[in-house]
Each structure stands twice: as C-alpha cells, then as structure tokens.
C-alpha cells in the first residue's frame, strides 16, 4: 500500500506543479526581456563566479515544464549539472587572454528572486592582470540581459550589463601589472584607430603637405595633439557629449578645409596650420572619444586607459609624420618643379575624399 500511496502523493504534487506551471506560464517570454546575474569575485589565486538565472529560463534550458520545481533544493541539486552543461557554452572567462576553466561547486535556490544560482570556482596558477567575461547565456533570446558585478576582494570594481550585441566585459587588476595591461590594451587601440581611420591620416597629411622645418611641423603636430587631448578627455569623462552626427561630418569638413587652405595659401607663410590644427583637433578629439566609448573605459583604471589611448594616437600620428615628411622633403629637393603640382594634386585628392565623407556621413546619419 505504501508505495501506491507514495505514487499518489507524487502524482498529486505533479498535479499541483502542472497547474502552477500553467498559471505562471508566459508564452510571451519566448522573446521577452529576461535577466540573469553574474557576480565575479576576483582574488589573487582564485575566482568565484556566481551565475543566477530566473527559474523560467533555467527550466527552458532543462526542458522541464514546471519551473517552480527548481525552487526545491533537492530537485535543483539533481539538475544542476545539466543546467551547468546548458549554460557553460554561453559563458567564457579569460585571464590575460587565456581561457580559465570553471568548475561547478554548488547550486543554490534564490526563492526571493525566483531564481537559481550556480557557483563556479577557478584556480589561478599565477595572478592575472586582465579578466574578460563573455556571457551570452540564452542565445535564443536576443532580449536577454546579464547584470555583471565584479568584486576585487570585497570592493565592487565593475558593474556592467551584457546583451546579445555586447556580450563581454573586461576588468583590470590594480597595481603595476594591471596598469601595464591597461596601457598595452589602450595604446594598441589608439594606434589601431589612427591607422584604420583614413580621415585622421588625411587630415594630418594635409597639414604636412606645405612642408616647413622640423620646428614648424612639430608645432603643428603639438597643437593638434593638445587640442584633441582636451576634448578626448572631457568627452571620455562624460563631462561633455557631442553627437557623432555633428562630429563625424565636421571631421570630414576639416579635411576639405585643410585641402583648400593648402591650395589658397601655397605661397604664404604656413603658420595658419597651427591654428587650424588646434581648432579642428578639438573636433577630432570628440571623434576619438566616441571610439573610446565603444571600449567602455574601465572605471578602475580611467586615467591610465585615457592616457594609453592618447599615447597610441600620438604614436600613430608620429609614425605618419615620420613617413610623410622625408618623402615630401625628397620631392622638394630632387624635383622642385614637380613639388607644387604634386602638393596641388594631393590637396585636390584630400578635398575630394573629405567631401565624399562629408556627404556620406550626413546622408547615412540623417
């Protein structure tokens, strides 16, 4: 009799579960906004990652009809490996660029959030300076958001929201190793941006076309650097925001302007370039800032990342100056008659390119 009674009780419980499941079922959730949490505790030699997901999302992963059943610790304990197996493909942790293996430690019920938590741990063979967490836990739901909290010891160092379109967050350690990692990343980003942004290259080349002595060229380059550093800093710190709709066409116009000035003032003293470099440098700085914002400046290393990016831009700029100046110098020395025509041709090329970008940016951003 007892087994039969037990069966009946279990069946009764299943009946209740089924009713509850249907009451709570929300087919619209298929693409509704759902949320999860990733709390990462970063210590010197180990990492703990607590992933908390809503029971409805967990039930979808597990293919079970009654999400409420996951609020039972014993039931969850039996399912946590399968749940982890379903979630881990969407979860990736890297330290200094190398994958960190996560091992499931335990599962916990969070009834107040109608959620379940999986707690992972990882041992670090050596301290890492840079962590990257990729979380796309429910790829079938493009609306899903994961709230990330990163703690260094007891201190909350990073909060982020990861989505289908931006699914990774990066955080840097404190101290010298963290600083070096920040500089490495952001100097590289600055150099990369200069060399993949032909508009900045053309602007600088345009300023150099009229030539001049080393001192004059240095003054022009410095004016540009000082100006874009100012606006890059104030925009990156969120003190001023200028829309890309305004900045990007203005950058294109700055190139057109420099091209025309080169044609107009060929015979004149070239000191106007310093003023132009400074004025338009302010505009280009806002352009650099929009790139930097895509990186999401690490709040824990704001100054270092800003400095690193700016340094990268300067390195790229210096590279262009050092490449272009000898060529122009050689041209003037070996083909003095040809040089003015070459400068004019290059100026027209710069005007056309800037004009094209201007219309393209105005039209595509309308």
């Amino acid at each position, binding site marked *: 009799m007892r087994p039969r009674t037990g069966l009946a009780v279990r069946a009764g419980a299943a009946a209740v579960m089924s009713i509850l499941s249907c009451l709570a*079922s929300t*087919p619209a959730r298929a693409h509704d906004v759902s949320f999860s949490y990733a709390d990462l505790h970063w210590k010197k030699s180990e990492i703990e990652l607590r992933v908390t997901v809503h029971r409805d999302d967990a039930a979808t992963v597990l293919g079970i009809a009654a999400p409420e059943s996951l609020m039972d610790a014993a039931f969850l304990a039996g399912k946590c490996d399968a749940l982890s197996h379903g979630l881990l493909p969407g979860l990736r942790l890297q330290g200094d660029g190398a994958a960190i293996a996560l091992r499931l430690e335990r599962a916990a019920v969070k009834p107040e959030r109608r959620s379940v938590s999986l707690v992972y741990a990882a041992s670090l063979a050596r301290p890492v300076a840079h962590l990257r967490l990729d979380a796309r836990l429910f790829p079938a739901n493009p609306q899903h958001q994961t*709230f990330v909290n990163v703690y260094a010891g007891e201190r909350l160092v990073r909060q982020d*929201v990861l989505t289908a379109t931006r699914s990774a967050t990066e955080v840097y350690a404190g101290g010298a190793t963290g600083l070096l990692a920040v500089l490495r990343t952001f100097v590289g980003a600055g150099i990369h941006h200069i060399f993949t942004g032909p508009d900045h290259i053309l602007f600088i080349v345009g300023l150099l076309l009229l030539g001049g002595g080393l001192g004059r060229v240095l003054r022009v380059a410095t004016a540009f650097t000082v100006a874009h550093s100012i606006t890059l800093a104030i925009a990156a710190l969120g003190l001023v925001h200028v829309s890309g709709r305004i900045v990007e066409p203005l950058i294109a116009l700055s190139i057109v302007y420099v091209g025309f000035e080169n044609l107009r003032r060929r015979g004149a003293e070239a000191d106007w370039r310093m003023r132009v470099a400074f004025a338009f440098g302010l505009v280009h700085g806002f352009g650099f800032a929009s790139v930097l914002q895509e990186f999401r400046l690490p709040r824990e290393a704001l100054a270092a990342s800003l400095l690193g990016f700016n340094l990268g831009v300067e390195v790229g700029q210096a590279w262009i100056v050092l490449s272009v100046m000898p060529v122009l110098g050689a041209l003037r020395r070996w083909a003095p008659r040809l040089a003015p025509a070459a400068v004019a041709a290059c100026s027209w090329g710069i005007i056309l390119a800037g004009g094209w970008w201007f219309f393209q940016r105005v039209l595509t951003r309308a």
Partner: protein
Amino acid sequence: MACMKAHATCPWVLAIAAGLFVQFLAPSAFAHQYWLAPSRYQVGVGQVAEIGAVAGTGFRGERKPWSPLLCVRFVARTSRMLDLTRAASPGDLAWARFAPSDAGGAMLGYESTFTPIELSAAKFDAYLKEEGLLAALAARTRGGASRPGRERYRRCAKAWLAGNDPSRATIPLGLPLEIVPEAVPGSGADLRLKVLWMGKPVVRALVKAWRSPIGATNAPADPEARDSTAVVWTGTTDAGGEVAVPVTRPGEWLVSVVHMEPCRDPAEADWESTWASITFERPADRSAASR
C-alpha cells in the same frame, strides 16, 4: 487492484486536464501590465519609499530589475523635476529610494525603450481584442493573412506618492502615452483622468482599473505574494480623451491603457504598442490622499 491503479493514475490525468483548463482560462499571456510599485504611497517628510516596477497580470506580478539599457527616463515631479536614473543600480529590484522634502507629493514616471516580440496570429489577435485595440485588429483582418503578430512594445508607468500639491499630479510628465489625473489621485470617489498620446487626447481608448487592499501597516501588499485580482472597472475615453474611474474603495489602485500603431520601423516590427499605467492609493481616510 484496478481501483488502486485508477487512484494512482487519476491525479496525473487530472494534472494535465487542470493545467489545460487553467491555460485556456488564463487571460492572454501577453497582456502583462507593468506598473511602478512604491513600498508605500503615503510618505511623510523624512520617510523613505523604495520604488520598483512590477510586470504581471491581475495586479500581481514579478518585480523587475533596473536596467539602464531599457530606460528612456525615470523621473519624479516634486517641487522640481528629479532624474532618478542616477540613483538606480543595474540589476537592483529597488530602483530608487525616495525621500520627499515637502508634503506636496511626487509623481513618478518611467518610460522604457522598445522591446520586440513575436506572437502567434491567434495569440496576437486575442490580445488586441482583450486590450480593445480594435483598429489594429481590423487592419489585420483586412490584411486577410493570419500572419504572426510582430510587435515592439514599451512601457510608460507613473505612480503618485500622496501630497497636497495638485499641480504635481495633474501636469503631464510628457511620456509618449500618459494617464494624466485631473485631480489628486485617491482624493475623491471618482478620479477623472485624461489619456494623452504624444500630448494629444486619445478618443475611445479602453481604460482598465484594478484594486488591491492595503493592510494595517499602510504598505501595499507584496506584489509577488498577493492574490491576483480581476479588473474592477473598464471604461472608454470620450471625445476629449477623458474618463472617470470610480475609485470607490480604499486600497492600492492600478489604472492602465494601451495604444497601438503601425510600427515606424517595419524592419523591426509591424506594430508598436505603448502601455501606460498609473498607480496610487485611495486611503481609508480620504484626507490622507491630499495631505
């Protein structure tokens, strides 16, 4: 023995039958209301109310975490307009902790971004019917094909924290779809209100109201733990976009309306809906509503 077997099997059959029964009886799954849920509506100077948001049906639901990515604005009209987004932390269920500086009251307002969703044709049509979105339903019917409902939706929720300055309650916050009271909510047996879409009155909009009792502690019941309740009143706005909601009994009230239009971005969706709500308390002692 046969009887024993029947007893053991019956609950499973019952479970499935009951589940299906409830499923069919349940209101359209999409028709999830969304409202701002303060921890209390009567907040004196020096007291603090926690503000959160809830999505659910029957004035019962689940608290939603704060997401900056979903927020267009989250404000409070007091003696001046306050931006509450600065106080909110991503993932927190308590979006803000609000401590009034005077007795004038505060109108809280939240506007979300759009979220795309796709429903089967049957579910989408049922939801249009349920929310009185007859123009959209007629347009779909004219279209002939029973295509899935490709929609994007957003929320425009308000909550009134009781006070004695009617202007804070009656001046629109400027939400795309907004329920604007014409008097201090909860201060009279009828609450006359206006429904505005982009600042203009909405004619023949279906307005619904729910009520949940407030206990002796003067705090609304936990929206996740309370019993769900049926709609206590429905009405339609007149030519001026106005309607009078009979706020007959003390308690926490939710008034809601939905507006739907063809989507401005056809690549994302065919329709876009905006869900507006306002929550307030009608205290047992009516004078408390306009303290």
